[in-house]
């Protein structure tokens, strides 16, 4: 018998791509969120428009955990193609909902789970006409059934539908009807609610549900970005779409129709980054968004921007590589590729947001850093952050904020100068002064990727070349002090976890579990490259640190061993690279396997 689980379970919905299940899933998520219960939604979708299997996971977590739980309590199995694996995935004592229009003996193969049949297709065929409508309504219908099974507030669901279809009364009517069909059927045929229940709480006030790409785009709007250039690539495209749609609403002159931004769909990623460099060089805040393959293509320009010292902001919404890889799955696989992008001695400032909230603030920081340091800044988000809905605290904006445009000489300052030298380190921080075209002929300089002196002239002289290259290293030291510092949780333990980006949510949950079991362990979350002193200190202070990251080759661990004094032996990798977001249980198991192998095998820690 299943124990009652209030506000603490995971639902997984297996459907076919392109059948319109997204709106049903959003509806379920939002209705749970609005009842004050923390909820997370993750979309595991194929690189396909229609026909391939797709899954959506909804985790209800009274404790506010937003990572994958690593278990499934309720499976909605609507895709015959994946029945076999979907049935297997349900935790013992769990539930499975399927479309009982057709008999599915395969689904009855698990005596340890409860199978619930709802004749979705049959009901929708009876009540709706048109093939497309019937397919769409089948989804809404399962949402209705789940509402009854999980005791969701049906009025709240109606309210949500009314908001969504405020301007389409016909659609509203059919959606409400479909919800009712599923809801009533479940109530009439099963004991509702199931032991899995949603009970209202008050833990979502002051929070929003937003994906990282939207939040990053909003950050760009608020940071004052005006030139956006890009080439479509999953999973970054929605960032640019969101920027455009925010600007269409917020930056268009109502009288003249003029747009206070330029939005350029480039011919490829090479052109996209070129446009960003051209615009930034010319004094506009400019950015692009891409994913791994785009970063590969941008390498040449990134080297130019590093050496010629041109600001640029690049969002890399990482997906699974190498090569085309799995475009709709997540990974932290571009850490090395971004840190040292391009030939020769290059290194780049990288920021690692852990969630949509940080995407918003780091978008702003990225522009400030890029212009202050006169160098490309890459924001490494990933598909999990970028395209999934995360619950996060309300985004705040300090109206006193003003962009840091860095060391740009104005007209008056130029007039007072006897001569302008582009690459001279006047202030000792490795950052030279720059000028913008069109201001004054005295301030004109020649930007080049070829060898140049500190005065900006072409050179092939060894000493002159080295002078500039060494000064760039001094700038790198300045960067260490300016990037967002790593966040440290706990102190004094022998063991540590080191990680970055989207792994954070699973780690924080794992920490709670481990500490709950008496494991003393600290946590360092790196938020930027180059690493600050706090990273060095943490690594030195811990006997053993688990480096948790979502790639095969331990890229963060490599960066740490390259850029800090840590001994390799002190870093133990926990690598998750399946393409799905890492779960807390993976980390708990990994840590326990190392420190207490017997304990790890004897208990069902994966589902703790």
């Amino acid at each position, binding site marked *: 018998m299943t124990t009652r689980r209030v506000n603490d379970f995971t639902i997984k919905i297996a459907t076919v791509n392109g059948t319109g299940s997204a709106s049903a899933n959003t509806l379920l998520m939002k209705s749970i969120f609005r009842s004050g219960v923390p909820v997370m939604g993750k979309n595991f979708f194929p690189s396909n428009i229609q026909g391939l299997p797709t899954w959506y996971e909804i985790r209800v977590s009274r404790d506010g955990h937003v990572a994958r739980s690593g278990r499934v309590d309720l499976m909605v199995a609507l895709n015959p193609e994946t029945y076999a694996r979907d049935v297997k995935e349900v935790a013992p004592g769990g539930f499975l909902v399927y479309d009982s229009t057709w008999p599915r003996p395969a689904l009855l193969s698990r005596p340890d789970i409860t199978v619930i049949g709802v004749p979705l297709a049959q009901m929708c065929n009876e009540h709706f006409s048109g093939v497309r409508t019937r397919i769409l309504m089948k989804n809404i219908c399962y949402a209705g059934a789940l509402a009854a099974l999980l005791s969701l507030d049906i009025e709240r669901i109606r309210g949500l539908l009314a908001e969504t279809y405020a301007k389409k009364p016909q659609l509203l009517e059919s959606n409400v009807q479909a919800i009712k069909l599923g809801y009533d059927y479940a109530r009439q045929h099963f004991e509702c609610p199931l032991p899995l229940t949603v009970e209202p709480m008050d833990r979502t006030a002051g929070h929003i549900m937003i994906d990282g790409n939207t939040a990053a785009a909003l950050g760009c709007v608020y940071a004052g970005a005006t030139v956006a250039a890009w080439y479509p690539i999953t999973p970054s495209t929605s960032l640019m779409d969101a920027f455009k749609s925010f600007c269409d609403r917020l930056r268009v002159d109502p009288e003249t129709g003029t747009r206070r931004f330029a939005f350029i769909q480039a011919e490829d990623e090479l052109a996209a980054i070129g446009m960003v460099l051209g615009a930034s060089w010319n004094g506009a805040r400019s950015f692009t968004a891409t994913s791994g393959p785009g970063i590969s293509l941008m390498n040449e320009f990134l080297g130019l921007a590093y050496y010629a010292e041109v600001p640029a902001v690049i969002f890399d919404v990482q997906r699974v590589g190498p090569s085309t890889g799995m475009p709709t799955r997540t990974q932290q696989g571009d850490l090395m590729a971004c840190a040292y992008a391009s030939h020769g001695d290059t290194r780049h400032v990288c920021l690692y947001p852990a969630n949509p909230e940080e995407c918003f603030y780091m978008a702003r920081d990225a522009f400030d850093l890029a212009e202050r340091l006169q160098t490309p800044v890459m924001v490494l988000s990933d598909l999990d952050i970028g395209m999934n809905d995360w619950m996060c605290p309300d985004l705040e904006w300090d*109206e006193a904020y003003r962009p840091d445009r860095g060391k740009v000489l104005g007209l008056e300052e130029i007039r007072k100068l006897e001569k302008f030298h582009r690459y001279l380190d006047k202030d000792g921080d490795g950052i030279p002064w720059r000028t913008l075209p069109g201001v004054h002929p005295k301030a004109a300089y020649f930007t080049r990727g070829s060898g140049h002196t500190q005065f900006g002239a072409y050179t092939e002289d060894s000493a002159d070349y080295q002078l500039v290259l060494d000064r760039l290293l001094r700038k790198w030291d300045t960067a260490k002090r300016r990037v967002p510092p790593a966040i440290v949780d706990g102190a004094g333990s022998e063991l540590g976890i080191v990680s970055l980006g989207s792994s954070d949510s699973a780690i924080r949950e794992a920490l709670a579990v481990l500490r709950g079991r008496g494991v003393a362990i600290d946590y360092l979350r790196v938020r930027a490259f180059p690493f600050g002193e706090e990273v060095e200190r943490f690594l030195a202070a811990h006997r053993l640190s688990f480096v948790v990251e979502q790639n095969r080759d331990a890229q963060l661990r490599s960066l740490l061993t390259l850029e800090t004094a840590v001994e390799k032996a002190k870093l133990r990798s926990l690598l998750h690279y399946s393409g799905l977001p890492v779960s807390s249980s993976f980390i708990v198991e990994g840590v326990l396997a190392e420190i207490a192998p017997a304990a790890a095998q004897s208990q069902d820690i994966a589902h703790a």
Partner: protein
Amino acid sequence: MTFIAKPKVAHPSLPRNALGFTRRDYEGALSTLCAGCGHDSITAAIVEACWGLSLEPQNLVKLSGIGCSSKTTAYFVSGGHGFNSVHGRMPSIATGANAANRRLSYIGVSGDGDTLSIGLGQFCHAVRRNLDMLYIIENNGVYGLTKGQFSASADIGSKAKKGETNLQPPIDPVLLALDLGATFVARSFSGDKRQLVPLIEAGLRHRGFALIDVLSPCVTFNDHEGSTKSYAYTREHYEPAVLADFVPREREITADYGAGEASEVTLHDGSRIVLRKLDADYDPADRQAAAAKVQERMSSGEYLTGLIYLDASGERPEFHQVNRTPEAPLNSLPYEALMPGRKALEKILARYR
């Protein structure tokens, strides 16, 4: 050599333009190209044109890729910012720079390798966007810096210095630009300054994408017998079709044109181009006819030169007109005009609850 400072002494009798500048004020660093290089003549023509237009030096933005031609942006108008970018990618730098500040004049200098091989894609898309810039191709049919390989503009049968014969057909930038909808398409010869200077003036003032493909012989690797891009061959085979005189808005037309010989086209800023057709049947306002004529002359080994095609009607919008950017450059907009404010953020967030 660029590290040898060029003496900046101007003789008092040198003529001055409306801004009081002499031609010397529009020069740049000393050229490091081979003596006799066609590119240096083009540089001189650009200097002449900028002086003639009384351009504020800081308002000229010079862009280039990689190659001999791309080096030349350092050799003119040292008062304007230059961006020597990466091979074949100058158009994207130009696009971004132009997006940030639409008020400046953008001149891109590229070569046949930079434009027609590695940079063909970006070139095509800059034309397609009708980016407001003057794009000069210094076309010599050969890779100079890497010592003499054929470029994509080399003609079939043209001989390399070491004797091999080019067997692949050329990509012609003029035909390409016509096909892609360019609004100003010209061809000229580095050795014909009288034809070239007014073309550069007009190209700089034209709103939208202006292409001038300039045949510019490489004295070191492509000036021998058997080459179709040598000085001798070009001189013999170039055929001016339409001569263009550029007349700034503030100047009267002073030249004496014979009756029916000249026609006038007014540009968006009020300046005019006086076209003199050498072939009475030729119509530089007819895109198809222009392309046909270029092809016809090409098949007999001739280069049709001059202002081959011009659409100054403004009917084809340039990049900013399509984007609907305000008149004020984007890089000049105050932050307050870009940041929607705290209240707006609260409203936005309401959609995510």
